[in-house]
């Protein structure tokens, strides 16, 4: 009881610095994400970046230095270049996967939430079952059966995002379908496509946009797990996951391989989750944890 009282009393002067701290963290996160995405997109045109496949770009197994920011691996390849190119591939899988996942999962969820009845029954039961199964097992299976190519890995991780997104979209659609403005539009004689696409859907979009950041994080981890255990896009392709898998074998000799790329990956996921959470909070979206 006393704790609640002090919390309420203490809340007033505390608000400003807290919000400023959050703003700073938000902009730092956005800045870091912009940097990572820019580096990934521009990798082929960055003049100062070494060729990630060129052996003996420097002395083998050397720690970070001014000429090789992330050090080199046992073949003397530049780890910074490899990290950037790994990010390029990992992000180019995660980007389309989340894009497709948001559209497909969003439509499914909104339809389920808006129409209810058997549509909801069908979508919800599939979603609940899919969410309860260990997704990595299935992604593993899909990739090995279809083959370890860029398209197949993207397909596997896309399938993985749809149920979680559909569940959140459904909850949001349910919330808005019951609102007055939808009832009013209904009473004014609007048909269901108008109600669905002009009244309900636009209100679900902000939630989906913030979910996209969280989903991006999940997909990056999923693809990273697949490449870490050797079941993603085959070598010589570079992904964050297979850099870390290589670093695992060299922990003793060159810990910098795992630490640098691991650090970049961690920072990126931290930023994605922070931006996603913060957007959800500011848009006041409830029931939206993935």
């Amino acid at each position, binding site marked *: 009881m006393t704790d609640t009282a002090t919390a309420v009393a203490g809340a007033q002067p505390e608000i400003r610095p807290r919000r400023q701290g959050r703003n700073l963290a938000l902009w730092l996160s956005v800045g870091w994400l912009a940097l990572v995405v820019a580096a990934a997109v521009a990798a082929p045109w960055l003049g100062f970046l070494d060729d990630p496949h060129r052996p003996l770009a420097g002395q083998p197994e050397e720690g970070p230095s001014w000429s090789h920011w992330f050090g080199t691996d046992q073949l003397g390849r530049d780890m910074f270049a490899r990290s950037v190119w790994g990010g390029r591939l990992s992000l180019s899988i995660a980007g389309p996967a989340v894009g497709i996942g948001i559209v497909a999962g969003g439509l499914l969820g909104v339809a389920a939430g808006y129409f209810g009845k058997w549509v909801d029954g069908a979508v919800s039961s599939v979603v609940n079952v899919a969410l*309860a199964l*260990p997704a990595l097992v299935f992604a593993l299976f899909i990739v090995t059966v279809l083959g370890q190519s860029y398209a197949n890995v993207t397909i596997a991780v896309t399938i993985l995002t749809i149920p979680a997104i559909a569940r959140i979209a459904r909850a949001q659609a349910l919330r808005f379908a019951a609102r007055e403005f939808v009832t009013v539009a209904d009473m004014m004689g609007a048909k269901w496509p108008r109600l669905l696409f002009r009244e309900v859907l636009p209100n679900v979009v902000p939630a989906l946009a913030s979910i996209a950041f969280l989903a991006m994080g999940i997909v990056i981890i999923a693809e990273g797990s697949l490449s870490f255990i050797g079941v993603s896009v085959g070598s010589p392709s570079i992904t964050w*996951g297979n850099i870390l898998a290589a670093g695992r074998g060299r922990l003793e000799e060159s810990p910098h391989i795992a630490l640098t790329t*691991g650090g970049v990956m961690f920072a990126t996921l931290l930023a*994605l989750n922070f931006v996603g959470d913060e957007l959800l909070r500011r848009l006041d979206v409830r029931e939206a944890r993935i």
Partner: protein
Amino acid sequence: MLRFLGLRLAQLAVVVLAVTLLFYWMLSLLPGNPCVAAFGGGATEEQIAECEQDRNLDDPVIVQWAKWGGDVLTGDMGKSYLTGRTFGEAFTNALPRTLLLLAYSQFLALGAAIPLGLWSGYRQNSVGDKIASGGAFALLSAPVFVLGLVLSLVFAVKLDWFDLGGYQPISEGLVAHFKVMFLPAVTLAAGLLPIYLRLLRTDVIGTLQEDFVGTARAKGLPVRHVLLRHVLRPSSFTLLTVFGIQAAQAVNAAIVVEFLFDLDGVGSLLVSWVAAREFLLVQTLVALIAAVFVTVTTMVDLLYSVLDPRVRRR
């Protein structure tokens, strides 16, 4: 109650059937003869013919699937054509390792999350609470393989407190066993801890507003007693539900952790069969995991509805 149970069991059967049929259909889409692939190219005509007979490759996909299902149900799980090891041998060897890993990590995660969650809910917005929440957020963002690598670098490679050399059974001595199992269990627990912690904290903040907590405090019961006896108890429902939901996540992470720490558990079995293209074994294992999985989540749901009868009426 019986209706509820029947519904869940029917759902369970449908899921397992649908998932395995889907896999069979996907496997049938693969180009080439699966029996030639199963031997890694070095098989005689006879061996291939035997394997083709074994797997009923002349039948339509749905019949193959039905026969496979019959075999599995009667205990014939198949064997690796490459190594000659049966499914049962490999699986019984791997299963205890995975179960121990999962048990240790749940124990560690709950053991840390319960006191931390109670405390940060009770001391909401205190410095300790903020540190715990921030730490939970950071842990939630760290992929298991990054965390596992950092932990093994610091505690096994640099400090040399733990071993990385692969699994040691309890019969080799408890010290050797835990030297191998501790880091994997911590890595896995680190992914579960923040989820338990966040939920428990929210729950505790809610429960602390209840009248019976005020009454207990007014009676002069010590804070520790109130938190453990009055506040924690209603939250056990939430923890149980989350435990059911998070089980899928735990299995995902366990596959990666077993691979990282060379534990040769069920996850490693899956990965090695996938790498060796032993699709039939993979298929059986995936079906088995799916079945165990749906059973566990169903049991959690049932337990939940026993504890709280309101759940049965949806």
